């Protein structure tokens, strides 16, 4: 402890007495006000321990005086929101889908609620406006694999398609090709061209349409129907219309016949609450007016 305080000759500031390689360290402590503020915050933090949840324990945490939790706050805010939405919104839970669609006010509420839910859950596959993509149906048109009534849409939404849910929509396109396949490559090509002819598309030169018709009747008609008009019970698409989920070119059709098709949609009843599901069904219905 030196009694004599050394001062730097240039700045006049006191030094700490430490010295490295001839360089002396100036003593410039933190301002007093800053230090006291810092002590004050330490004292303040003790108050936090008492009031707010703070310390982890073996099986939980100290809850603090008021049992405050952000989760409870969110729950309360959601309850307030529900109250704000009012009686009409509560009616969505009990009203039938048909009644919701026919009441302009309820329809507006359901659509307003369904739209963000669609964006959160459906848009990744079906697109933000429900326009779909290859393999993901367009929800704005009138072609419904599993039916386009309100109840059909709700059922598909609730239980999904080939989702593994016991009530899921089941039925998939069988693969006809491969090594031990039911049909040979040539036969698949012929069948594919016959399918194209069903909706008036051009046929590859030299195709034997009569052979194709027979192949179709033997292998395809059981699901897709004699005229290829499909079967909504098992999700067999209409092959005679202008809408092609996987494309209408020969190669795409050959690929479908060879390897089969079996896209999956999740069962949303396992993930979303009943009111949101109802609102979603109404919203999806309203995109196209259903069928």
């Amino acid at each position, binding site marked *: 402890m030196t009694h004599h305080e050394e001062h730097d000759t240039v700045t006049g500031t006191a030094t700490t007495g430490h010295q490295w390689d001839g360089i002396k360290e100036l003593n410039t402590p933190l301002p007093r006000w800053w230090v006291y503020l810092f002590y004050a915050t330490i004292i303040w933090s003790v108050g936090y321990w008492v009031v707010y949840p703070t310390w982890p324990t073996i099986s939980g945490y100290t809850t603090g005086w008021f049992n405050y939790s952000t989760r409870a706050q969110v729950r309360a805010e959601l309850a307030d929101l529900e109250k704000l939405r009012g009686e009409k919104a509560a009616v969505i839970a009990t009203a039938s889908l048909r009644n919701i*669609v*026919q009441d*302009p006010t309820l329809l507006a509420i359901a659509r307003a609620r369904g739209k963000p839910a669609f964006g959160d859950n459906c848009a990744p596959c079906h697109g933000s*406006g429900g326009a779909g993509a290859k393999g993901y149906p367009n929800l704005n048109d009138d*072609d419904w694999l599993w039916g386009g009534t309100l109840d059909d849409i709700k059922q598909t939404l609730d239980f999904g398609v080939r989702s593994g849910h016991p009530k899921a929509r089941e039925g998939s396109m069988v693969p006809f090709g491969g090594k031990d396949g039911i049909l040979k490559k040539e036969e698949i090509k012929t069948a594919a061209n016959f399918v194209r002819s069903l909706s008036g598309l051009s046929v590859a030169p030299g195709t034997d349409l009569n052979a194709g018709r027979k192949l179709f009747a033997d292998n395809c008609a059981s699901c897709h129907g004699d005229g290829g008009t499909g079967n909504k019970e098992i999700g067999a698409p209409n092959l005679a219309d*202008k809408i092609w989920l996987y494309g209408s070119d020969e190669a795409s059709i050959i690929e479908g016949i060879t390897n089969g098709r079996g896209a999956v949609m999740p069962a949303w009843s396992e993930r979303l609450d009943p009111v949101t599901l109802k609102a979603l069904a109404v919203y999806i219905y309203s995109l196209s007016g259903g069928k």
Partner: protein
Amino acid sequence: MTLLLRMSNNGHAMNKNLTPAELEANTEPLYAAHKKVYPQAVSGRFRRIKWGLMAVCLGIYYLLPFVRWDRGPDAPSQAVLVDFPNSRFYFFFIELWPQEVYYFTGLLILAALALFLMNAIGGRIWCGYLCPQTVWTDLFYAVERLVEGDRRERIKKDDSKLTAGRVAELATKHTIWIFIAWWTGGAWVLYFADAPTLVIDLATFRAPVVAYVWIGILTFTTYALAGFMREQVCVYMCPWPRIQAALTDEWALNVTYRYDRGEPRFSLKKATELRAQGERAGDCVDCGQCVAVCPTGIDIRNGAQLDCIQCGLCIDACDAVMTKVGRPVRLIAYDNEINIERRVAGKPPIFKAVRPRTVLYSTVIAVVGSIMLYVLATRAFLDINVLHDRNPIAVALSDGSVRNAYTVRLLNKRAYSRTLALDVTGLSGAQVQIVGLDSLGMTRPVIVVGRDQTEEIRVLVTVPSRESLDKSTDVAFVVTDLGLGEMAAARDHFILP
């Protein structure tokens, strides 16, 4: 003389040409220190006009929210109401929707032009008689005078030590001021909700917090602006004096000291002596009454100045003195430089209210006013907005037909519910469907929209064949009131995939 010096120190009244050396030596502060003004009571014609206008302005402001106007059972019955929750503005028989707020632009233009016209005819009529700052400051001065006494007493009291009696007096004054300020803030919020209901809610502490907050803000601003800042608002804060000075011309009548009559100044005794000797003496007896009564603390005899709000109180003060000394009144009057020069030259004064400037202002006021009246009288009570789906823009259907979907909003501004039919023109053979609407047996979709409401509907337009259609076809959505035949239309497009 001291008075004149004081004015020059103030910096507004006189512009001296200083040499650089003088500028260097000039130690005058950049900002004028505030000198408290103690206006003296005065009576006369302009004071009476001011009292009258104050009563009218404050009466309208405080009482208008309580005026009722019957609009039927489901509509507010307040004559003037800004209804934010329901996005409506009511003014007696007029009801405005948010998209019609541009009418206020027209009103603002009219207000500005009226201000210009007033200025071209009679100077700062707005400042002197109608501006809220003037009206409330005048009211606060009246309270001050009532509690503390007139000018001399107030000056003396401010200079003496605080006594218990003085403290009680000050407390009384500020209590009354705060009460007026609070009432001013209270009246303001009544324009935004049903006034009688809100008054009860406020009194029972059940009114929304925002109402109390606004009352608090306006109580504070009224108290500060009218109680303390007073003429400084006019001199330092308000832009209008600067604009007014640039807009005025030599014909505009302003509160003017007729120096041709007033100068040279002598005491009454000296002036009488001089006149007895047949020499000329001005009418001004330098009594200082015009300065004593001035609410902005200036001397009108220094000529037109930015601080002068032209309230005319100095005219009243001077007239009283002139009557007493047996000289003609209106030594200070609404006048202009042209007439002073004409009188000096021995010609009769002329007043020219009709000049290119006033004609122009009046014409523009008439034109803008007519346009606004026309627009208001012929505005639509039915409207339609259309928003084309962006994704997907167009949808191909299974039979090869093409569909476009639109979100349509129908606006019914009438006070009764209406049955509206929707047509889409520009497409042959198009099928128009409103989602959720059973259009059984109807040739076109029909929808009911409630009174004073909008209805959003989703409309699907389907065309059987894409042949003969361009990539994009112009279409119009036409909505028709089946009862009145009133129509509205919106343009949009029908697009092919």
